[in-house]
């Protein structure tokens, strides 16, 4: 066997392996989209692997009319938006203070921030539930966003590392021009930190669009139901009605998939940036 042939075979094998991996990854998505376009009658009669005939939007129509899926989509979008803005602004503030300002107690406080990175959600969920309930905030919009609104230690940590890398001359020059801290943040720090801020924004949107456990325990009823909780509820109520359930899951994942495909270069780069902080 010649070397050329062997390398050709190697390329072919690699392609086949990658193709198989991609197929395995995509199959569940495709199957659920197809099922969501199948009528319940056809699904009952022909089983899960039948091609939708005719293609129907009835499951989605039902989702919005009968199962009131408009509310969860809107509520989730509101929650994500408010958290996104709060996290970015407050994390930038805090990270800048840690990175570029000297003040008493800085190192001790930063140590506390680092320590809180280790606290798992499973630990805080119960006390947070009892705290929110005690102050009468259960099943309110604020209960959904407050715990995340003021920035996360992770974001502060990430941004601090980055802000420390900003050349001191840039900031000094701005200060000499008479800029206050807010203007420095606005005209110097934020513009040079666009990639890392994009990264953080993407991580925040993904995390909170997908958040399930906290909304599950802290909301009640349709008023502030988010999309993951609505999907779980639909699944348990319409257990065997897979055509409607797959429509719900498709709706729950589609916005992020679109977001991801639009920003995929950014996201792929940013995931690895954050990994290698």
């Amino acid at each position, binding site marked *: 066997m010649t070397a050329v042939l062997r390398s050709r075979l190697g390329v072919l094998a690699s392609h086949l392996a990658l193709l198989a991996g991609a197929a395995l990854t995509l199959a569940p998505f495709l199957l659920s989209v197809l099922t969501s376009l199948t009528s319940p009658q056809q699904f009952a009669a022909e089983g899960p692997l039948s091609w939708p005939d005719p293609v129907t939007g009835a499951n989605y129509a039902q989702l919005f009319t009968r199962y009131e899926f408009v509310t969860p989509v809107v509520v989730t979008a509101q929650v994500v938006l408010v958290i996104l803005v709060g996290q970015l602004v407050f994390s930038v503030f805090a990270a800048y203070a840690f990175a570029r300002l000297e003040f008493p107690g800085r190192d001790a406080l930063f140590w506390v921030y680092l320590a809180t990175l280790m606290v798992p959600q499973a630990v805080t969920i119960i006390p947070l539930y009892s705290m929110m309930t005690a102050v*009468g905030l259960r099943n309110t919009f604020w209960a959904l966003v407050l715990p995340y609104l003021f920035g996360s230690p992770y974001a502060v940590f990430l941004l601090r590392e980055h802000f420390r890398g900003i050349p001191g001359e840039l900031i000094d020059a701005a200060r000499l021009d008479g800029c206050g801290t807010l203007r420095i943040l606005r005209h110097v720090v934020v513009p040079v930190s666009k990639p890392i801020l994009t990264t953080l924004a993407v991580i925040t949107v993904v995390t909170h669009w997908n958040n399930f456990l906290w909304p599950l325990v802290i909301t009640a009823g349709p008023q502030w139901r988010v999309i993951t909780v609505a999907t779980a509820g639909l699944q348990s*109520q319409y257990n065997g009605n897979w055509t409607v359930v797959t429509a719900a899951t498709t709706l729950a994942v589609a916005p992020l998939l679109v977001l991801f495909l639009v920003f995929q270069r950014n996201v792929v780069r940013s995931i690895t940036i954050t990994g290698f902080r």
Partner: protein
Amino acid sequence: MKITHLAAAVTAAIALAVTGCSPVAPADEPAQGDGPTTVTVRLWDQQVAAAYEKSFAEFERRNPDITVKLNVVPYSNYFTQLPLDVSSGTVDDVFWVNTTYFGAFADSGRLIDVGKELADLVPGFVPAAVEQYTRNSTLWGVPALTDGRIALYYNKAMVAEADVDPNNLTWHPTDPAADTFLPAARRLTKDSAGRTADQPDFDPKSIVQYGFNAGRDLQAIYYNFVGSNGGRFQDEDDAFVFANPQAEQAFTYLVGLINTAHVAPPAADTNSNGDFSRDQFIQGKMALFQSGTYNLKNIADGARFEWGIAPMIAGPVGRVSVVNSVIAAGHEASPRREAALRVLRWLGSQEGARFVGAEGAALPAVTAAQQAFYDYWHSRGVDTRFFGPEGGTLTIPAPSGPKYGAADAAMEPIFNEIFAGRIAVGPGLQEAQDAANAAVR
């Protein structure tokens, strides 16, 4: 430039959060001087919710100062969610409760004392329902519906083909000669090659038509099988006593139907999906489906074949059914307590309760409103008499006790294993009974 965008976004977000609120009208806001008060009602049944929509439309017409909004919570989450919402005060003003929780709620002062507030209506309620929900000598809710007796839905073509008379089926745990049910169920079960379960080369792995809906279903199956074998589930002071020989025989029989005779769907399907058997029946893949009035509308609307209703399957001591009712309770701490009471009064009146029956959704627990239910089904050509006394008169007491919910949570995983045939019935029941009794202590 960037910052202006950001500032705009912040403003927009906060504006959205503060003023936009949820697209669903907020229920927590106290009633404003003008505008109607919104009272919310929580329930789990879609069919009844549809009937309630009509009932409350009439109520709103007569009470322009009150609007009623329904909140349908899936049954599978209902009793996980309810205590949390009751304790945090975020529960709806009026909500359905069954036996499993009303005791705990009543004892902690969460429920409006209906026996006192609506005393004039109480004589009009179905006595069994009043009795079930009386605690500390008062009634804790307006009986919303009563399930009547359990009966047997059957697929006419299937029983005709197998030459089975669904009106006369008896099971027996030990005497095969007295057991007419099992041979019938065998003839009613078919594999993909058309062989029935009583044929030697029947393939239990490729069943296309099930005979019966044995499975972990408290109300429709195992309570009744235990009762019709002379067994008990709880004693007078609510302790669990189902690890007794009669109950063990009943469970052994049921597990045998699933795992030995293969006439019922595997527990893997029915344990995780309480509606699996109902859906199989509606899709024409099951011959006999034992259930209650709560599935009548689902079946009548969903089934595309001829079907009928027979009395429930009899056991050695006859036809013994669990008879359960549901109440609509009022939230004592609701800021709209007076409005909630008016809604409850409507639900307890003949006019208000009539809609539930008139839509055929459920049998109202207001005696004078029940005729509407029978009339509705009569007009659709459905014979409902076996949900009443003609389907038998013996009963086994419905689940009771303030902590039944905790006991149920402890029993369920063990029952799952029993039905799946992974633990032996005798030790399994003992384990479940111990777990249930420990949970209520």
